[in-house]
């Protein structure tokens, strides 16, 4: 195995493979940073381009492209409160408030450093647990996936940047919207109004673009000025270095967040989005200043981005072992592998081990390279936050609508976009959490399917949810998380009550 790893490493740094990997990194980084043109889309566009290439060039080329999108997606999340990819949503919590405070350079520095180091951590862990990863993946069945998504949903209650009830209302709305469409549990088409458009449900990317990008554009149009508010705006490389240093001096938080990203990322279906919110949640709960989360706490950005890049390694495992993609990006990557005659499973772990390592190394290289580029360019990118919005809004609008249409080339996506845009703006005005809505939208279908599947496979009815070890652990995590959060928010009242009684 070590010999295969060394051979793959030597192949990666030969020409023209290295050249293609560098090119792919930049393409992926650009794609990830433009909301609407994310990893799966650009990867899908590039697969035909690789046709005719030697697999030794094509596979690392595609993998590097995917690697470049992870950090790229944090750039719009920080600068314009719009996650470039769904897993970057948690970065918005604190990244954008930092940008509003004139600390965009610092936030981008944190993101770049956490991304690069997180990728290294994730892939190191991948190589270490590869021998036992199969058992870990098989241990997560429907009941475990159900509790995992419920823990993810609990973030709504715990980390809501608005009041608890409003957070729950937003999350509930997200869940309601998530149930629109065809369900493969019963074969019913729910609330589709007889059209094909809503068959697959409300498109997540359209909801993201509308709720965050378009809503933010509307808000900027109303308020005017620039993204960064106040006089203490710092746009400099020294601020970027401050961000990088913050990551280096927070090793325990970094390791915990990366571990969560890697391990949860391994669970097919849960995906990187759940991992990032779980990492964010643990950062908040272990912080000495949990109330500052959501207002520009650097630890929030660190946790989310470290987890986001560490998950890339975890998501590769089910794909390599079983041919099950762990995310939309790895699904398209898998298609590219099959097109080039690479079958997942035994082949990738035996005869094709060198190619497997080459793919992994290209992904790591892209993550690190994009992080370095991010560090070097962060101070320039953050200038976007001090430009008067009158100059940037037209461009942002074009990006939004082009991105929405490019998803499926469906006209109704353009119609749906402003619906979510105005909904998002209303939520800003009346203080409802858009993050909670997105969480409900993403996790609702996973929770519903896993709930029903658990009952279908059970010989003991509903007791299956508490009869399996991992399920019990996740349930306890949920109880402790929500209970501790409730206690933290109301401890003064609780103590006062106990004193009086």
């Amino acid at each position, binding site marked *: 195995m070590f010999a295969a790893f060394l051979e793959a490493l030597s192949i990666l740094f030969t020409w023209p493979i290295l050249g293609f990997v560098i090119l792919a990194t930049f393409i992926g980084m650009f794609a990830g940073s433009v909301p609407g043109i994310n990893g799966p889309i650009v990867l899908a566009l590039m*697969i035909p381009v690789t046709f005719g290439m030697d697999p030794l060039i094509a596979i690392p080329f595609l993998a590097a492209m995917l690697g470049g999108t992870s950090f790229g997606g944090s750039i719009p999340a920080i600068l314009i409160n719009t996650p470039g990819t769904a897993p970057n949503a948690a970065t918005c919590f604190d990244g954008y408030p930092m940008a509003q405070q004139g600390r965009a350079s610092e936030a981008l520095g944190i993101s770049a450093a956490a991304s690069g180091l997180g990728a290294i951590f994730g892939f190191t862990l991948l190589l270490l647990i590869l021998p036992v990863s199969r058992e870990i993946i098989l241990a997560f069945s429907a009941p475990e996936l159900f509790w995992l998504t419920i823990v993810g949903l609990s973030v709504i209650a715990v980390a809501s940047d608005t009041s608890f009830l409003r957070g729950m209302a937003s999350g509930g709305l997200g869940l309601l919207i998530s149930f629109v469409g065809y369900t493969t549990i019963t074969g019913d088409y729910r609330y589709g109004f007889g059209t094909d458009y809503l068959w697959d449900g409300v498109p997540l990317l359209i909801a993201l673009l509308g709720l965050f990008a378009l809503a933010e554009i509307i808000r900027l149009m109303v308020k005017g000025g620039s993204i960064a508010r106040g006089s203490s705006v710092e746009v400099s490389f020294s601020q970027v270095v401050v961000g990088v240093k913050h990551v280096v001096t927070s090793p325990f938080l970094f390791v915990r967040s990366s571990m969560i990203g890697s391990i949860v990322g391994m669970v097919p279906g849960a995906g990187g989005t759940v991992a990032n919110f779980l990492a964010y949640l643990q950062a908040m709960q272990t912080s000495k200043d949990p109330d500052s989360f959501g207002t520009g706490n650097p630890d929030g950005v660190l946790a989310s981005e470290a987890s986001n890049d560490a998950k890339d390694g975890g998501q590769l495992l089910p794909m390599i072992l079983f041919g099950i993609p762990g995310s939309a990006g790895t699904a398209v990557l898998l298609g590219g592998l099959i097109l080039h005659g690479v079958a997942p499973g035994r082949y990738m772990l035996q005869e094709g081990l060198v190619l497997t390592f080459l793919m992994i190394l290209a992904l790591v290289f892209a993550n690190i390279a994009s992080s370095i580029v991010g560090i070097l360019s962060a101070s320039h990118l953050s200038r976007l936050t001090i430009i008067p919005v009158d100059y940037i809004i037209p461009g942002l609008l074009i990006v939004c609508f082009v991105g929405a249409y490019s998803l499926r080339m469906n006209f109704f996506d353009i119609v749906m976009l402003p619906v979510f845009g105005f909904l998002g703006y209303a939520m800003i005005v009346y203080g409802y959490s858009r993050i909670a809505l997105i969480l409900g939208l993403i996790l609702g279908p996973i929770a519903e399917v896993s709930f029903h599947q658990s009952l279908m496979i059970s010989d003991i009815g509903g007791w299956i949810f508490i009869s399996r070890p991992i399920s019990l652990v996740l349930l306890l995590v949920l109880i402790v998380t929500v209970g501790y959060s409730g206690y933290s928010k109301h401890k003064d009242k609780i103590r006062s009550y106990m004193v009086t009684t």
Partner: protein
Amino acid sequence: MVSRREVLASTGLATSLVAGCLGDSDGEEDYPTDDIEFVVPYGPSGGFGTYSAALCEMYPPYISDDAEIICTNREGAGGMEGMRFIMRAEPDGYTIGMFNSGTLLSNQFFEDDPGYDAREDIDWIGQIDQTEHFGIAGQHTPFESLEDMLDYDGTIRIGGTDPLGPTMITWYITALEMGIEFETVTGYDGLTDIVTAILREDVDAAIGNTTTFRPPVEDGEVRSLIHYGEESPEFAPDTETIFDLGHDDVSFIAGTGRWVGAPTGIPDDRLELLRDSFEEFIHGSEYQEWAEDAELPLNYRDPDGIDDGTEAVLGLLETHGDAIEDITA
């Protein structure tokens, strides 16, 4: 007296009429003068996307020296969005695409108002492949053939993606004809997800295709159960076939046909060019070699064969449709 304006108007009208007559685009020698859009009803990953990407790369020389074939992925509604897009396109020969036979025909039968009839709204060009369905069982089960399921005391759980998807319909008809009692566990993301569910012992068996199930069978992780072709696949030569069990008619529905078609109404000469060039392309060495390297089967069928297959499948659904609706109710 005729005014200058009237002269100019008349001249313009005459010029337009002449230009219109000269702009003859119906002749075979003029087609194709532009790129042809090849619509794929699924994403670029997966079987349809894989076959299509190679087709778009290798097919153009067989039809034209100038025109390209541009693959467009239009996924949604389980593939129906892309397939409906093809059926509604202008029948000028510049929009063709791939159809999933199972989804197309089961959707037509089970939907109250599908809005199309595959027998009338599509001009078939040819079949790329009919991947016959293939059944597997977990090593944790005692099932080595379907007949083992007949006397089984416990609950038999069959994994599936969509309760009205082609593979599940194949299973329903098989079980109805053989008298097997079962429960379904649906909602899985794909066939590989179902294989993992079998490995977890969440489900006992599943129907899928040879392409996806071949690796776990060859690795010994699952057991082959049934094959819906006339002969067992080479990687599992001892697998019982539906023909061995005397239920030959089930084979009509038990496969994923990757059919290439166009909206009905294309000029005959263009349709003929498409059909002839497609047949030549499928049998050409380049596509054959690619398929062999990628370990993907190719099974050409001509348009008449596709029509026969369509009638056979719809007939089978007619026979068992009520019972299937009872199962999925």
